[in-house]
């Protein structure tokens, strides 16, 4: 990513941005986030197929935001997240510059978020084949079998909230689980606490999740929690049409159509 390094240096040197968020080599075969604040640090920037962490999680982080205008090396999922965040008034053109990395690994610098949105809308959000297969498999099960599946899968969860931390959409300063009057979600990581936490998480991400898998990648126990959000994504598409984050702010779950179809209300 010679282009990226070069551009990062320029942006920092000319003080167009105060910090650029990109990837660097991490421990072993891992990559990790790099915050370029000095032009020299830009040399550490890398980009390759291992760079899957959703860096958009940092643009709402207080300590990063406070540095001043940010630039972000953004893959397609990151760009989608940014559009969703912008539609939720968390970022704007004044505090964020997007250096897009296309699925073909080309660098595009966007003048503003509207351009990012236009770019993002060229690509429909598609659930990958492996997970689609998994969803199909689960849907073919009986309800009781699914219950067992999830009880088994969720039982190891110790509620470290890495899924929440890694998700760009989970930027709330007080998550529902931190709300204790009343205590909506049981704090302990017992079966009920785990089930309700993950249900709540999936609901709150419905219509907002852009299917980047950050939650799953972050899970230290590799629990397939992304299946829940994927299911919501697939269902939203089925019921309300293809979903794309949009600066218009016509959020899927805070709007409705008078003719929304269902077959279960008597």
């Amino acid at each position: 990513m010679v282009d990226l390094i070069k551009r990062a240096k320029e942006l920092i040197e000319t003080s167009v941005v105060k910090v650029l968020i990109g990837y660097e080599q991490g421990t072993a075969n891992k990559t990790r986030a790099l915050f370029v604040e000095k032009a020299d640090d830009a040399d550490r920037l890398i980009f390759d197929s291992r760079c899957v962490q959703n860096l958009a999680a940092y643009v709402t982080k207080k300590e990063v935001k406070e540095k001043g205008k940010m630039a972000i090396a953004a893959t397609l999922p990151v760009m989608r997240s940014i559009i969703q965040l912008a539609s939720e008034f968390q970022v704007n053109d004044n505090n964020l510059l997007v250096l897009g990395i296309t699925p073909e690994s080309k660098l595009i610098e966007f003048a503003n978020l509207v351009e990012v949105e236009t770019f993002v809308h060229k690509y429909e959000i598609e659930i990958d084949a492996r997970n689609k297969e998994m969803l199909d498999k689960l849907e073919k099960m009986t309800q009781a079998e699914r219950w067992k599946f999830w009880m088994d899968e969720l039982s190891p969860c110790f509620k470290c909230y890495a899924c929440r931390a890694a998700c760009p959409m989970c930027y709330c300063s007080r998550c529902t689980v931190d709300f204790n009057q009343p205590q909506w979600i049981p704090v302990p990581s017992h079966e009920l606490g785990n089930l309700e936490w993950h249900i709540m998480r999936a609901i709150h991400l419905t219509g907002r999740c852009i299917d980047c898998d950050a939650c799953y990648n972050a899970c230290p126990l590799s629990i397939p929690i992304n299946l829940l959000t994927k299911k919501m994504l697939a269902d939203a598409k089925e019921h309300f049409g293809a979903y794309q984050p949009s600066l218009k702010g016509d959020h899927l779950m805070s709007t409705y159509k008078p003719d929304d179809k269902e077959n279960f209300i008597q």
Partner: protein
Amino acid sequence: MAEFEPKIVAFVCNWCTYAGADLTGTSRIKYASNVRIIRFPCTGRIDYMLLLKAFDEGADGIIVSGCHPNDCHYTSGNFHARRRWIMFRSLCDFTGINTERIKFSWVSAAEGAKWAAIVNATVTSIRELGPYTEYKKVAKYPEKEVTHG
């Protein structure tokens, strides 16, 4: 053994279903006494978490009911509710929560008879399903020791 008496919680809006249930009363239509109504201003106010809480605390069935589409006292609370129900119900189904135990309905202020019918049908179907032991098993601490994950 005595017949299983399901516990059913009804989450209803004030303007249509609550009033509809009032009309059931005024019309002296009898129905099963298993249901307890909790009054909300609007179906839009009904938090899906409350439905889960009802199961947590031992409900065997749930009724959620409000104004027919277009009839919402607040114009669109029920439309918002409907969209949330669609997604919430699908998620419940996906996680294996028994969606047959959650009955959604529209009951207007004029449908006293319909309210009685909804309650009776729900009681009958929950009676057939039996107590919601799967959920109760994970919900109540006092019955089990939690140790290792």
